[in-house]
């Protein structure tokens, strides 16, 4: 074999290395495109304002019911009426399941008695559960 043929083998090896490097860069490029797609979709899909809104309204209603509540009367109907309306509106307009439960006198210490409010939200993609303690001075 002539000597020039051995030199050609170096050219072939360099061709291999360059093409491998190009494939590696192409894989990196594809990964970066997917990395842009997924988080921006998650940001769009997450129902942040809906959850905060429902949480605020139900907490307001629960605080009012809790302050008016004494164990003899049945004043929790004010909270139940609001919860019922929000439940129906959320299902009809938002396609979301909203559920809440209010337990009076869940905990007590020397100064306060706490009502416990649990809020559940599920729109099929995002599920959210929250628990809130609402204090009332004894």
């Amino acid at each position, binding site marked *: 074999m002539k000597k020039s*043929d051995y030199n050609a083998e170096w050219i072939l090896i360099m061709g291999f290395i360059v*093409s491998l490097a190009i494939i590696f860069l192409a894989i990196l490029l594809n990964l970066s495109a997917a990395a842009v797609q997924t988080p921006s*979709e998650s940001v*769009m899909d997450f129902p942040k304002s809906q959850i905060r809104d429902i949480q605020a309204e139900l907490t307001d209603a629960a605080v009012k019911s809790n302050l008016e509540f004494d164990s003899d009367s049945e004043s929790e109907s004010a909270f139940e*009426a*609001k919860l019922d*309306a929000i439940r129906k509106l959320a299902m009809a*307009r938002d396609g979301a399941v909203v559920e809440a439960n209010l337990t009076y006198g869940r905990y007590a210490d020397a100064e306060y008695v706490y009502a416990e409010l649990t809020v559940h939200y599920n729109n099929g993609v995002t599920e959210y559960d929250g628990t809130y303690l609402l204090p009332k001075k004894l």
Partner: protein
Amino acid sequence: MVKVSKSTLYDRECGQLFAMEGLIAAAIMITAAYLALGTVIPPANADMHVSEMQLKQIGDDLLHIMDVPDGNGGTGYLESVVYNASPNRGPAANAQAGAAFNATFMNYLRKSTGATINADTLRYSAAIYCVDDSGEVVRLPFANYGDNTGRNPSVCCARYVAANDWGLIGQSSSDTAVRLEVLLWRE
């Protein structure tokens, strides 16, 4: 004789090298084709929906600040507007509530620094959804600024508002909650 056979052997080995070069050239061309066909830019939501995300954030924020009470234990502005928008208050109070909401909402919507003149391109259309005696959801048109002909993509912002003594005409009134929905778009 021996010399001639040797040279033909060398020629054949050179041919193997050319075949290998052909294979590698094919591999490189396939790689190039893979790169050319595989490099598509996926339409990311970050590009497509940026303006919609901003509009939705504006609308949600406006409804939020209008619903938050000014002081501790008070009622928010939206609550008093919705109170007057109840159908059992009569059409005059309802129209007044719509006008008051329109003035406040447009005022917030057009807020700017004053250093430049903002083009007045934001439009909205609001409706109130409530639950009637039979448990059905009813839509009540509330207030609007501009008409959407369907050409402009709009976003929907919503807020639940506590509604005291709220009732439809001819039905019982109660302390309940309604849903105020605002469609927001750019003209």
